[in-house]
């Protein structure tokens, strides 16, 4: 009993001391240099679904990381500083991301976050990053909110062409081509799918109600069986199939359409555009007839199309980088997420170079939001300009339509610029 009392006294003293010391630590510390930048390193951070059902998106981080390593090892880094890329796992669950964001900012003391993946996961921490004035740069999602909400959230920026714009591009093409009057839409029941549907509707204008015969949805973790959705759309008399679904569901939907004798014109969203996916579908179907003519869009070069891009310097660079630093990314380009990862990493490196020695978060953000003008991205389609201005906060806005032929995509038409409405 006596020992117990003594112990309690010791603990109380310790506690008071801790409180006294700790109280001085509360509150923000004014710093002269932004955290995450030293003489020889710049630390970038990101949250990704490294585990869980969305973990196939992790390839984006792998592609980006491979490019950073290439820059570090063969280009002397960025203005003499090596890039350290810290990727933490939020399992695509927005309940996990706030803690991870604080981990990156407070513990890993990252200079900025780059390429965070997912719409709800980024929404969950948008307030935090903006309050902390930590850039939430080039988030990897096709939602349009990042550019649209820029004035309220000036520290957040997207990169890839957004889904709504892509939907409008398809709508425009549909109205210009013949025999595509009746559209059946399959979309994932979340913002990604709805953005595509809304883009289509917006692009069709007042013809939308007449042209869209029926819609069908599914939830992200449903069994991959789109047969009832496909049957429903087929029964509605549609002769065009607009698919806003992720790769597994999209492939299943198209396979089901072919197997059920439905021969619509197919429009495939870019997220599920990877050649590897459709080669697999063609193989499973035994013939490419059902998939030939499917239309999608792309903003990237396709290394799998060796006939077209085999000698392209940018694609060669991709292959080199993935071979040497690939982290598991296939140099042939079978995993399209590796490609987009490297493409956006190129922009990131360019941006850091542009910032020179004024490596403050504010300066980098000012450049990113309003002064990007990159014309030499190795993996974006030729002629693409990664551009932001004071009024335009959507960096990549150019896409090209492509048509599936047997085992690869054939781009056609001009590279469309969504900026020119």
């Amino acid at each position, binding site marked *: 009993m006596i020992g117990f009392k003594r112990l309690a006294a010791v603990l109380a003293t310790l506690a008071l001391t801790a409180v006294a010391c700790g109280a001085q630590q509360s509150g923000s510390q004014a710093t002269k240099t932004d955290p995450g930048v030293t003489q020889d390193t710049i630390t970038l951070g990101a949250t990704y679904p490294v585990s869980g059902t969305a*973990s196939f998106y992790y390839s984006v981080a792998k592609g980006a990381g491979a490019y950073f390593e290439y820059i570090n090892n063969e280009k002397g880094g960025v203005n003499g500083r090596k890039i350290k890329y810290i990727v933490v796992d939020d399992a695509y669950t927005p309940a996990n991301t706030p803690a991870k964001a604080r981990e990156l900012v407070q513990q890993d003391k990252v200079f900025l976050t780059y390429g965070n993946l997912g719409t709800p996961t980024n929404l969950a921490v948008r307030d935090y990053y903006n309050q902390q004035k930590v850039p939430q740069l080039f988030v990897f999602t096709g939602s349009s909110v990042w550019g649209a909400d820029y004035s309220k959230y000036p520290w957040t920026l997207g990169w890839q062409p957004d889904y709504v714009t892509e939907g409008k591009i398809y709508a425009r093409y549909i109205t210009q081509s013949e025999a595509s009057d009746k559209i059946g839409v399959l979309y994932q029941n979340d913002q990604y799918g709805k953005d595509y549907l809304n883009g289509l509707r917006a692009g069709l204008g007042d013809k939308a109600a007449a042209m869209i015969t029926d819609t069908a949805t599914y*939830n992200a973790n449903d069994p*991959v069986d789109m047969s009832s959705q496909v049957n429903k759309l087929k029964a509605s008399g549609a002769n065009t199939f607009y698919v806003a679904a992720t790769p597994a569901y999209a492939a299943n939907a198209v396979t089901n359409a072919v197997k059920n004798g439905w021969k619509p014109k197919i429009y495939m969203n870019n997220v599920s555009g990877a050649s590897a996916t459709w080669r697999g579908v063609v193989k499973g179907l035994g013939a490419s007839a059902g998939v030939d003519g499917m239309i999608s869009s792309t903003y990237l070069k396709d290394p799998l199309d060796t006939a077209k891009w085999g000698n392209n310097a940018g694609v060669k660079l991709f292959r080199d980088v993935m071979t040497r630093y690939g982290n598991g990314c296939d140099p042939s380009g079978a995993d399209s997420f590796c490609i987009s990862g490297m493409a956006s990493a190129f922009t990131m490196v360019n941006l850091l170079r542009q910032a020179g020695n004024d490596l403050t978060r504010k300066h980098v953000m000012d450049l990113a939001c309003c002064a990007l003008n990159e014309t030499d991205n190795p993996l974006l389609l030729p002629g693409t300009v990664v551009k932001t201005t004071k009024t335009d906060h959507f960096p990549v806005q150019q896409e090209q339509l492509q048509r599936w032929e047997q085992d690869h995509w054939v781009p056609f038409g001009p590279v469309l610029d969504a900026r020119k409405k």
Partner: protein
Amino acid sequence: MLLAASVIQSFAQQVVSGVAAGAIYASLALALVLIYRAMDVANFAQGEMAMFATFVAYTLITQFHLPYLLAFVLTILLAFAGGVIVERAVVRPFEGAPVLTLVIVTLALFSIVNGLAGLIWGYVFKTFDSPFPARSIQVAGVFVGIQDLGVIAVTLVVLAVVFSFFRYTRLGLAMRAAALYPESSRLLGVRTSRMLALGWGLAAAVGAVSGMMVAPIVFLDPNMMQPVLLFAFAAAVLGGIESPVGSVIGGVIVGVLLALVGTYLPGGQNLRIPFGLIVIVAVLLFRPAGLLGRREMKRV
């Protein structure tokens, strides 16, 4: 007239597609039933074990260039062995433990198997070929995929094998006895623990078949069986969680109901998983033994 015909045709098409999907749920449900018969436990890791076996098959086909049939058979044997090893290493230490412990054990197993698959093969989707051609035949205007017929056929064959095994073989009888009356069986010389290992091996083998049927439809990746698991449970519960035949019937019913609910109920497409919940709860409340299960008396 024409409208009615097309409505009927559309309905029939949904039913046919539903049966095909149901065969998938049935094939995994069979494995679940086998484990449950052996030890009264719902194996939450069954789908992951099936997935792992499918990856093994994938490796055999793509890396060792074995022909499909050989890889198929080899995978089943390897899966059987794997199931036995899992039972010995992971389940046996917890023999006699309360239900909750066993639930946690199977959840831990889920984690381990899923992580192992991700570590070895990564999370990028892979294509896995079906042994059946992808054509369809038309029956009265309704398209029936040959692949789907193949899945149904394989499921029925597996069911027949399992059923005959339990009904007509000595070993099967011994397994049933060991599960129902462990004490008496032991007294009669049945090696009950060996029966348990056999049960797990069998379940793993059946699960492997299920995985290899599923993989061509969805892509092969470590998470591919998770959406199937809930409906496999629903099928098993509906059919009678101790009845292999029941689980297949349950699977078909679940598949068809899902297709119909998805088509004819407004918003039904988004409520598949909640529908699975409803099936499970409704059956457990109103007819816990399922369609073909025995009505159990609780001995006081």
